[in-house]
């Protein structure tokens, strides 16, 4: 954003608050546009992946080429849908729940480094900030479930509370492992470190284990199958958003796909080199070249992990509630601790792993 403020100063002679507001307008506009376009694309992609895994074609008609406009049509349709608020629901809480759910994940996107210098703000608490702000979403879901005053919603919300809250522990512990190696919370420092050394996934077997633990527990954090108990279509109708309709309902989906993006992006940035290409040193490149390539590389990595998330969704059956809880506390938490301590020991003795 500093770069933008400087640019506005040079081009239009803007200064102070005016330049800051202009930079904010550009940042907000681009992040909003990105979230909207990304989630439409991700929903279309999810349908296509699901269809092809089940040997179907998926949407093929809308828009011509492979039904690319399906999500756009859906968004327009949702805008025209009646907004039903049940009489028994607490209207105000019911009303603010989608906003609470969406705000947290949306604000989490500001620390994402898309390429060199393409970042809204480089907070010095980057990683910590993302997990802190992403957990606001749980509060929104509990508000939604409770305010709906429907039994399905209540079950969904309580399950979500128990599940997301439990899986936050292995997520955070697994995130500590790369933080311990790099010694920083800034997401940009991970990119520089991996450009100078090697991708963190190859640093030691414990880093790879932490990546796996993070990926599994982030699936649970995004309520994706096999951990989609809060939504569980076959038992809870659609869980905490049973009573929601139209635009309000779509915000829960927007949030789900955005948090999938954040989880996949954290995996790509912390373990898989971020916007760095493998085997290519891009540090000396001109920004005009490094910037678009960085964005493309990072998005390619991120979309690969999003694809894996979708692949798992359409491959694995849903777990039971008690299995979800024992998976979190009895397997992921102890192994995340083992990975953390083993990495510290590994680092203390300065052991290497692969000749990279």
């Amino acid at each position, binding site marked *: 954003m500093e770069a933008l403020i400087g640019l506005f100063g040079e081009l239009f002679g803007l200064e102070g608050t005016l330049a800051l507001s202009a930079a*904010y307008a550009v*940042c*907000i506009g681009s992040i*909003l546009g990105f979230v909207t376009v990304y989630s439409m694309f991700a929903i279309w992609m999810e349908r296509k992946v699901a269809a092809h895994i089940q040997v179907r074609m998926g949407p093929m008609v809308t828009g011509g080429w492979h039904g690319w406009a399906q999500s756009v049509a859906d968004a327009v349709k949702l*805008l*025209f849908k*009646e*907004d*039903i608020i*049940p*009489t*028994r629901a607490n209207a105000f809480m019911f009303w603010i729940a989608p*906003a609470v759910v*969406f*705000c*947290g994940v*949306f*604000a989490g*996107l*500001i620390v994402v480094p898309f390429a060199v210098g393409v970042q809204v703000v480089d*907070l*010095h608490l980057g990683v*910590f*900030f993302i997990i802190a*702000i992403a957990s606001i979403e749980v509060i929104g879901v509990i508000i939604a479930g*409770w305010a*709906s*005053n*429907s*039994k*399905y919603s*209540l079950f969904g919300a*309580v399950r979500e*509370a*128990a599940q997301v*809250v*439990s899986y*936050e522990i292995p997520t*955070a*512990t697994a995130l*500590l492992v790369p*933080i*311990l*190696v790099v*010694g920083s919370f800034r997401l940009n420092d991970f990119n520089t470190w991996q450009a100078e050394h090697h991708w963190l996934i190859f640093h030691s077997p414990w880093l790879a284990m932490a990546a796996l633990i993070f990926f599994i527990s982030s699936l649970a954090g995004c309520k994706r199958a096999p951990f989609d108990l809060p939504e569980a279509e076959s038992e809870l*109708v659609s869980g905490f958003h*049973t*009573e929601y309709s*139209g635009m309000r309902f779509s915000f829960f989906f927007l949030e789900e796909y955005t948090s999938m993006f954040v989880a996949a992006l954290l995996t790509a940035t912390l373990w898989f080199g971020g916007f760095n290409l493998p085997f290519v040193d891009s540090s000396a490149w001109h920004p005009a070249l490094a910037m678009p390539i960085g964005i493309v590389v990072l998005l390619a990595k991120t979309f690969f992990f999003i694809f894996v998330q979708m692949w798992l969704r359409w491959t694995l059956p849903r777990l039971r*509630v008690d299995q979800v*809880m*024992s998976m979190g*506390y*009895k397997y992921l*938490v102890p192994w995340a*601790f083992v990975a953390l*301590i083993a990495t*510290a020991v590994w*680092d*203390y003795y300065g052991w290497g792993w692969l000749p990279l």
Partner: protein
Amino acid sequence: MYLDYHAVLVFLITGAFMVCTPLVLGMLFRPKNPYKEKNLPYECAEDPIGDAQIRFDMRFYTTALIFVVFDAEIVLMFPWARVFQSAPSKGVALVAGLVFTTIVFFGLIYDWAKGDLDWVKSFQNKRRVQD
């Protein structure tokens, strides 16, 4: 540096605004035709019996308690992981981390042995002892 955090506030407000805008805009287009049956909570076409805002199973309470303990512990581990590389003596940092994690780990094992991590707490063994 700390002023960077005003961006968080701005984006939180924008997020809320972005949720509200389509909802308000939609008011111009969308139909509004509520009736009694439509506004009932959905329960597969049955009339709902009673309220959903009831007291709920306390099993979730244990989970929440365990979470709070572990989350506080994770928060304490964050600064440790951050400064580990730049610690004046890595050995001391390693031992401190080991001691702390071992204590927490014993806590986890205690919870596990007590059966607090099980979703359905089993009383079978205790009953056998009483018989």
